[in-house]
């Protein structure tokens, strides 16, 4: 599903973000990625999302070699993954329903499919009654649920979550990770970058620690059970 082989990334200002980085994540896994600021976590995610290209090495995501991917194929690769951001990145002028439906419009879904699927996904994240609300009327946790619903709506094979609990209070954080755990149980691969060690300790999922551009520690657990 995700394979990094001897990947290095050096930015234009000579900052070395990743150095001979090797990591393999199989289909259906839930992986926490942890590490100090500047350790290379963000670069790791940017490389998966094709926002950056590696300086050397091979990256394979969903069977696609990212070093040889054509620019016009990048949007199609992104559609195979749902992405959840720390700052939610939902569009203020759109209602909750529209924010989620937007991701379906991108893949050319019909209005009928959208009307059927969006309420179902909003139900999964517990926002069925807030479909018509604007983001400004929602709490941080609810905004992140909208982000999660948008990531889920096209049934991706993998969800990449970049510190999804970074901007919400701790009780909400646990709920979000629980929700991700439920999604993972249905077979969706989850890669979650986090700073929150209490969450990592609470949920026994595979944990990869990145430090100085390398994998420093990998618990290597395929699946963990929730406490």
């Amino acid at each position, binding site marked *: 599903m995700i394979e990094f082989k001897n990947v290095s990334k050096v930015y234009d200002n000579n900052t070395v973000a990743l150095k001979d980085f090797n990591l393999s994540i199989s289909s259906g896994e839930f992986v926490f990625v942890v590490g100090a600021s500047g350790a290379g976590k963000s670069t790791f995610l940017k490389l998966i999302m094709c*926002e950056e290209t590696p300086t050397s090495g091979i990256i394979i995501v969903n069977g696609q070699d990212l070093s040889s991917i054509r620019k016009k194929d990048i*949007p199609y690769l992104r*559609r195979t993954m749902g992405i959840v951001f720390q700052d939610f*990145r939902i569009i203020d002028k759109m209602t909750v329903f529209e924010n989620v439906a*937007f991701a379906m419009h991108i*893949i*050319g*879904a019909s209005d009928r499919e959208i009307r059927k699927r969006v309420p179902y996904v909003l139900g999964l994240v517990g926002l069925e009654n807030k479909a018509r609300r604007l983001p400004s009327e929602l709490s941080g946790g609810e905004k992140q649920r909208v982000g999660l619903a948008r990531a889920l709506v096209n049934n991706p094979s993998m969800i990449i979550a970049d510190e999804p609990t970074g901007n919400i209070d701790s009780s909400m954080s646990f709920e979000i990770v629980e929700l991700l755990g439920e999604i993972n149980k249905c077979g969706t691969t989850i890669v979650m970058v986090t700073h929150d060690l209490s969450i990592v300790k609470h949920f026994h999922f595979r944990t990869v620690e990145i430090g100085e551009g390398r994998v420093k520690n990998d618990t290597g657990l395929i699946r963990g059970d929730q406490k």
Partner: protein
Amino acid sequence: MRFSSIKYFIKEGFKNVWVNGMMSLASILVMICCLILTGGAVLLSINISNTLKSIEEQNTITVYLKQEVTSSEAENIGNKIKNIPNVLSCNFYPKEEAVKEYKEMLGALFEVLQEDENPLPDAFHVTMEDLSQYENTVSDINRIDGIEAVSDRSDTAERLTDLNRLVANAGIWVIISLGAVSLFIISNTIKVTMYSRRFEISIMKSVGATNWFIRIPFIIEGMTIGLISAVLSTIILKFAYDELMVVINNIVPFKGIPFDNLIWYVAGGFSIVGILFGLVGGLISISRYLKKEGGDVVAW
């Protein structure tokens, strides 16, 4: 492209005009100012050259025939004059009429002349299409047999031609400069609009939207703003123009072109320019943000 996508693009394009209310309003106002300024300059230039043309048309030269020319020969000469390329009209002016006019003008003074000894020759009143060709046309006329003289108005012709050239040149430069200023202002307005929406563009990219999927609603939005501006500019310009005509007419007798004769040209021209500016402006300014990825588009 699926029908549902086309429907979505059009709906989004129109909706965005409304949702981004203040920015749309700013863009519309800027575009209206630019269209009215440029359109006004075009109308002014058209009116001036139209007035000059009508003065030109009134600028008749008189071609006197020799006394011995018979009426059938005169008719022949008339046809020859009419066949000269630059001649717009050529009307026979018989000596009897000339005498009548002189009598009216001079009264008793003219009575000393006896009617059977009419000293005036038959003549033609000739108008020209292009006064800058005055000299050539007069020499063409002079070459025809049976012509005594041609009244010389080369001074007036030269002055009118110079004025016409000046108006045409100045008009073109005024329109080009105003057009360039308008383009600059409009492209800046679009840049500001895009800057305020870079966040939206970046989200679209991160969830897998292709560049065209992002572009099309922006283009439809730009074109809609252009069209709205064109319609409003036409209405405003009509009222302003009509009012201005009334004011000018109170000062000097001036017969401008009625706006209603021009309304479809103005509306059509404004619509084409407005839509084109919206389209090109949208395409150019969005491409800057489409080249960037996630965090580069906006500092998260």
